[in-house]
């Protein structure tokens, strides 16, 4: 019982402190620019490009796809920076010197970004409603909320995996940026999955967001939770898989860093 309480405390303190540390150097105005206005500009750009290509009837396809994709801003950039921050700020040796439960410590880095990411998606959908005429009247809102939660969780799972890369490479932002833009292509946010060649479809099925975006489109069109149950289950499992692979990498990095004496290497 004591062990559980300790682990929960490690999880919660890690969650709060890593988020505060991340936004210590980011001012509210930066948050506003990165998390409110940038999503609007990105949704507008890809929606206008999409409607220019295929006509105004498809506006909602692009708005929903790109609004859900905003989950990757927190899920990938936020989570990666929370994990990588320990390396850059020199706190990694202390972290690995503690007996704290590694899973609680690792997953704690992503928790608030899941909530923050959900807020980002909601802001994206509201922008879509206000600026691009997205119709949410048919949507089952609790089902949509669950879809956003599951999708943000799975994207943060990918972020945790990318965060581990930030512990062993100096160019993680290059990888992050590439993955972020690749998601715009492979997740079905802007290109219908049916038009992808088989190898791209295989990649898209292995990524977070793909099933979440498909589920969100169906829910906003009027489908119920039961209709998208399998998509959400798949999205959740993909997220769990990324968390587990990320965790294994985290432990492997800890082992290698201790063995080689490279904990402080930046």
């Amino acid at each position, binding site marked *: 019982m004591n062990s559980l309480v300790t682990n929960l405390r490690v999880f919660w303190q890690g969650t709060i402190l890593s988020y505060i540390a991340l936004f210590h150097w980011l001012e509210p105005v*930066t948050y506003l620019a990165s998390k409110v206005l940038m999503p609007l500009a990105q949704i507008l750009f890809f929606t206008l490009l999409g409607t220019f290509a295929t006509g105004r009837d498809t506006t909602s396809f692009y708005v929903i796809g790109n609004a859900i994709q905003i989950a990757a801003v927190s899920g990938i950039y936020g989570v990666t920076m929370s994990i990588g921050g320990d390396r850059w700020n020199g706190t990694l040796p202390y972290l690995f010197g503690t007996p704290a439960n590694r899973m609680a410590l690792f997953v704690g880095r992503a928790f608030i970004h899941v909530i923050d990411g959900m807020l980002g998606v909601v802001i994206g959908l509201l922008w879509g409603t206000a600026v691009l005429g997205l119709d949410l009247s048919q949507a089952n809102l609790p089902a949509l909320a669950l879809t956003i939660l599951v999708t943000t969780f799975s994207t943060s799972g990918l972020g945790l995996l990318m965060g581990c890369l930030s512990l062993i490479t100096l160019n993680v932002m290059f990888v992050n940026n590439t993955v972020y833009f690749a998601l715009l292509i492979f997740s079905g946010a*802007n290109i219908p999955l049916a038009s992808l060649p088989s190898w791209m479809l295989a990649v898209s099925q292995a990524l977070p967001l793909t099933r979440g975006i498909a589920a969100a489109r169906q829910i906003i069109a009027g489908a119920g939770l039961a209709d998208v149950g399998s998509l959400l289950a798949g999205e959740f499992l993909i997220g769990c898989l990324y968390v587990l692979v990320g965790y294994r990498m985290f432990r492997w990095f800890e082992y290698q860093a201790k063995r080689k004496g490279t904990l402080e290497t930046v």
Partner: protein
Amino acid sequence: MNLLALQRNWRAILVVAEMTLRQTVMDAFILFTVLVQPLLIALLALWMLGGRGPEAAMFVVVGSGMTGLWSSLLFVSGNSINVERWSGTLETLVGVPTSLAVIVFGKNLANVTQSLISMVVSYLLAALLFGYSLQVDQPVQFAISLLLTIVAFISFGLIIAPLFVMNPSVQHWQNAMEFPVYILSGFLFPVALLPGWSTPLSYLLPPYWAARALHGTSTGGSGLNEVLFYWGMMALFSVIYLLISGHLFRRMLVKARVDATLDME
């Protein structure tokens, strides 16, 4: 900054440009900005606009290349003074007889020229992966448009860099300024899709006139008179921005010396 200063310092400009290229050629962030991101945007746009044929493909090649130009200008040229500050070399640069504006001009020249790779990469993508046989419709006019685009972007960069130094709060908006210029400049779709109130904003952006000239000459969609007008607008904005930048650089240096903040943000 005036044209005479540029003429007198052309050797310094070229040396700075060469040094900058050597320093940044393998920089991961710049590689992403001028190579990977335009490539992914081109891939996406070619897929989305694929049904519209080779003319749309040329539109995408030029437009996605311009996204690389703007992103590089915003993130790399915009920080060209701050980078020296972070490296601890700004005081030395300010102390040398060559004016800081001339040095930043050279750095911007390197960045903008390097960004043209975006267009080449997009062209190769369209030709090799999508099998388009693309030809520039008016090659001479296109080359002149490209040259004027480089000058216009460099001049625009000379405004952004001192503004970011003098107003760190403006820099917080850097991430949010990338896509709006893609949209307002009509890089990948016509600005006619936007509401009418936004058109004057497009007119104030040199990238908009550059996009009109490059799209018009590459696809043959613009007549000579229209192209001449676009060139005139780019030249006009370049001169205006060069003049304003001279004032901004003077103000920035005076302020930094008075506040003793040359080496700190």
